[in-house]
């Protein structure tokens, strides 16, 4: 997928809610001991939802980008506050941007990279100057389900602009791959999703991520060694490590962007937030691979090259590591209250 003009990242912003639920708490209530695969997960407060977190991440991205006008705002999420009524218009209003194409996108955990592809296309065609792509989720697992251990909350936002001396990275290449695969779903009126357990692995996650990344390599003549960093979608701590090895990457390349063990799976925000963690420390000239995965199923893979302006731009960044370390631990009861599992 090529663009007419080169497209770069003008700003990025991340939001991670303050509260953390240690997974030992979930085990204490439901399984009687132990912990989950990840140590903790980020939990949105009672007054937070995908709209509020999208706004917070978007404000940070806009603050870094320093662009006055946006031509598009896409919010990728599977936890829309409304079934019908866009989240993107809340973000547009909060940013004071009105002459924008605004829409919500849904594709399980890859809604944000889908938004990135679309904004990349709009900017790259010359149709708009700047666009905003946001990945955000307050995903929920059924109480006691394996999914409950990993489903976290968070948001990541990217302002894409036509490449210029102020863009901190260039999106050099991107591919998308989809098949109809029912590994994980949620019907219209259901509160919690259902999944096919082990089926979510090989036929779903691994097949799609491996295929998209190989397609990217083939199309653009790239290989694992060409990348200083790689970020994969992180449904749990194990899958991204496994897929990295299969594709020829070493742990050194993925460790910076691997956030699942400490904040859980932030769904649509997962791989975009991993990219942000990389951008917090990458050097000019370095290359980053980003590959998402969305159940249903598909994967978008990108090659992103860091530019010389990264150091200057990064001065405005609220670092992912700082957002992770500033937190308040909660117990299962507080989590249940915050996420509406109990109410008055």
């Amino acid at each position, binding site marked *: 997928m090529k663009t007419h003009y080169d497209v770069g990242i003008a700003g990025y912003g991340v939001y991670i809610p*303050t*509260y953390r639920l240690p997974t030992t708490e979930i085990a204490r209530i439901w399984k009687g001991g132990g912990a989950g695969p990840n140590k903790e997960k980020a939990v949105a*407060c*009672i*007054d*937070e*939802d995908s*709209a*509020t977190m999208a*706004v*917070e991440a978007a*404000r940070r991205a806009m603050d870094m980008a320093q662009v006055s006008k946006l031509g598009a705002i896409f919010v990728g999420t599977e936890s829309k*506050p*409304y079934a019908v009524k866009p989240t993107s218009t*809340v973000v547009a*209003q*909060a940013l*004071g941007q009105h002459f924008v194409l605004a829409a919500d996108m849904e594709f399980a955990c890859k809604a944000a990279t889908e938004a990135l592809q679309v904004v990349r296309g709009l900017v790259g065609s010359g149709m708009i100057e700047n666009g905003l792509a946001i990945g955000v989720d307050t995903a929920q697992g059924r109480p006691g389900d394996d999914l409950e251990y990993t489903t976290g909350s968070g948001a990541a936002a990217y302002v894409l602009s036509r490449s210029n001396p102020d863009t901190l990275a260039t999106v050099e290449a991107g591919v998308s791959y989809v098949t109809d695969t029912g590994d994980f779903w949620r019907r219209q009126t259901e509160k919690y999703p259902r999944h096919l357990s082990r089926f979510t692995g090989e036929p779903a996650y691994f097949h799609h991520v491996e295929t998209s990344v190989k397609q990217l390599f083939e199309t653009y003549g790239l290989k694992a060694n060409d990348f200083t960093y790689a970020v994969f979608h992180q449904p749990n701590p194990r899958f991204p490590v496994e897929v990295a090895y299969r594709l020829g990457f070493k742990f050194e390349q993925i460790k910076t962007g691997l956030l699942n063990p400490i904040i859980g799976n932030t769904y649509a925000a997962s791989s975009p937030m991993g990219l942000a963690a990389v951008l917090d420390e990458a050097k000019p000239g370095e290359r980053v691979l980003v590959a998402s995965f969305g159940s249903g199923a598909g994967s978008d893979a990108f090659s992103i090259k860091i530019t010389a302006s990264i150091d200057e731009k990064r001065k405005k960044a609220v670092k992912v590591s700082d957002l992770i370390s500033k937190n*308040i631990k909660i117990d299962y009861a507080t989590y249940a*209250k915050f996420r*509406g599992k109990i*109410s*008055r």
Partner: protein
Amino acid sequence: MKLSISYWRLKDRYYRLVGVRCEECKNEFFPPVYVCRRCGSRSLTDKEMPKTGKILTYTELKETLAGFEDQEPMLLGIIQLDNGVRILGQIVDTAAENLSIGDRVKAVFRKIQEHGSSGQIFYGYKFVRT
């Protein structure tokens, strides 16, 4: 009264802290005023307020108004923004025992109320300590 409609009228005030500035003496006000409190001028135009300030006073409310029960106990504060304007808002992501008069805060975007699971959600500003 339909809150959905009064909220819609005020969304820029709630989302972006848009108050007013006096064209004559340049003083700023939030909530907006019709007549400048300092010089009496009626020439006032919209102006976005600064998003940082300090706590002048606060409370932990145990008995909330109807519709806010799930947010109990609720921290509320009167905040002096960095332009001197004072506004009221909830303080979130902390506990009462961590608060002191004079603490620095910044405005964040949060859900203020929602009308059950079928009605609208109303967003606006709250404050967190920095």
